[in-house]
């Protein structure tokens, strides 16, 4: 026996494979073993669902995504919050392996999009910003043809389609043409379609943009159910309420950069005060008023139509404003939101 036993050969081979494919994940794994977090008998430590470092997407000389680093873990609901043009969609296109990264390190489901695009995509569900449904076909047929892209057997697709149409609350429209559906229904169908392959990661790019409030809430409810089911979600949005509702963790993006990262509540705590006092004084320059309130608030933002006073107790500050002889046309005390975080970090509002 020159080469040793088959078992030994297999072990050597597996070791080589692990080193070949795990790269830096291996370093973490070894570290975990030393600390006793990962026991030596267990398989490899679970890789993050998405891992990117210094990721760049460049169009000619313009960098739409300018060096972002993000890790999304299994079962997490992760958000990219930012205004239009922040680079969210470009990031989604790279993560969903539809568009190559210009620079940087990207791993999706542990694999490299550059070399394993089709394999990764076979495990992803994508809900693009614009619905890409076959309008001439029925809802059921749309699910069928999409499932066939994943090479699923017809019987299997039809079984799943029943469940998914039920989940999307579209069962009674099953045989209608997509052309006849409302925007909200099309969105829900697109989500059902993305789930037909039972993906390990569902990516939603601006899922509720353009929907009326009722349709939005219905969609949020569906996404919330997916989230509680443990489906890993990545959501981009420029609605701060959407991000607060749905995301366990998020990054705030602006001009291709990440300006903050954390849980929604944590971000608000870190970057804003508990309460915000909004004051509106007719048509006069709000700038002038702001000077008189500087000692009352931690910070003041002057918007074209109102003043935002970042304070701990809004009512208390409001009575102080009154006691100084000012009578704002309108006032509102509210809790800080992610919108305020964005304003503090960038000096601009999320939705123009």
């Amino acid at each position, binding site marked *: 026996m020159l080469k040793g036993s088959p078992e030994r050969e297999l072990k050597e081979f597996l070791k080589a494979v692990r080193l070949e494919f795990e790269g830096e994940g291996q370093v973490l794994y070894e570290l975990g073993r030393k600390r006793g977090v990962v026991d030596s008998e267990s398989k490899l430590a679970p890789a993050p669902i998405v891992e990117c470092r210094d990721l760049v997407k460049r*169009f000619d000389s313009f960098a739409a995504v300018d060096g972002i680093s993000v890790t999304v873990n*299994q*079962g997490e609901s992760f958000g990219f919050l930012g205004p239009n043009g922040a680079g969210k969609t470009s990031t989604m*296109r790279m993560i*969903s392996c*539809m*568009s*190559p990264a210009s620079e940087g390190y990207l791993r999706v489901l542990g694999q490299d999009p550059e070399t394993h*695009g*089709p*394999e990764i*995509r*076979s*495990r*992803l569900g*994508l809900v*693009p910003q*614009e619905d*890409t*449904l*076959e*309008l*001439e*076909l029925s809802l059921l*047929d749309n699910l*069928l*043809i*999409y499932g*066939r*892209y*994943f*090479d*699923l057997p017809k019987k299997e697709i039809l079984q799943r389609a029943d*469940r*998914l149409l*039920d*989940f999307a609350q579209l069962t009674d429209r099953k045989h209608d043409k997509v052309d006849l559906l409302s925007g909200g229904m099309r969105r829900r169908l697109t989500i059902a*379609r993305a*789930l037909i*392959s*039972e*993906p*390990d990661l569902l990516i939603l790019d601006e899922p509720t943009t353009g929907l009326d409030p009722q349709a939005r809430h219905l969609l949020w409810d569906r996404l919330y*159910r*997916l989230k*509680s*089911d*443990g*489906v*890993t979600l990545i959501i981009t949005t420029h609605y701060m309420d959407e991000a607060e509702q749905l995301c366990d963790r998020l990054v705030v993006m602006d001009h291709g950069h990440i300006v903050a990262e954390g849980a929604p509540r944590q971000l608000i705590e870190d970057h804003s005060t508990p309460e915000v006092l909004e004051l509106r004084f007719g048509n006069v320059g709000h700038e002038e008023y702001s000077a008189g309130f500087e000692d009352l608030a931690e910070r003041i933002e002057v918007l074209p139509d109102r003043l935002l006073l970042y304070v701990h107790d809004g009512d208390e500050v409001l009575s102080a404003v009154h006691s100084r002889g000012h009578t704002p046309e309108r006032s509102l005390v509210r809790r800080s939101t992610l919108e305020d975080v964005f304003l503090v970090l960038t000096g601009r509002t999320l939705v123009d």
Partner: protein
Amino acid sequence: MTLGTLSTRGSSQPRIGWPTWVRAVWHNAFVYSKTWRSSIVTGLLEPFMYLVAMGVGIGSLVNKGSGGVDGVPYLNFVAPGLLAATMLQIGVSDSSFSVLGGLKWARTYFAAIATPLNYHDVLIGHLAWIAIRCSAVATAFVAVMGVFGLLASPLAILAIPAAALSALAISSPTTAIATRQDDHLSMTVVFRLGVLPMFLFAGVFFPLSRLPYWLEAIVQILPLTSGVTLCRALTLHQGLHPSLFLNIGYMLLWFGVGYYFSLTGFRKRLVI
């Protein structure tokens, strides 16, 4: 139902089965099977209306005046020309607005490339489906020609692949052009300036020798001219002249160049 059944989370494997481009062909076939009624008039009825109007109507005048064309009755002469012209119609109509729709309007190509398919699969699926559909139409057309007694020999069956090749030689450059358009107006210009003159002058309705020398030289450049020549030679059994291989090669060249530029166009629009 529990929602646990909606996702397997971590258990799925890359699926191996049909090659990805075959799935794209299947997709197009399925969509066609559901929407064919809207295209059946241009695809199948129109050529037969031309055949009757031109072959029987005008043909009777031609035959009376000069005893047919190139030694055969006008109907025999015009039928293979119309076969190639039908390939032009389908090849162009299925590669213009449908491509623009996939890229821009319904954006269904973007749905496809979010799955295991890539842009190349989408292109192959598109062209392969046109080849299949055109082969089917050509088969029906040749069968009707047989019924009319317009086929000179069993060799005429080769007119079916010849017609399919004509379709590809036209649809692949059309696709390349469509990937570089942004609205239906510029596409309409392509129709007016490219397709209509080709239909009228590529020798479908009269022998090219009737044209002035300089115009004949220009017409020879068109891909449809080779398609007409090939289909006509095969159904009239004018003998397998070696120059026919030049026609085949020339159409392959159009197909190849069109394919290359379709691919770069798809990449530019889809991968970005």
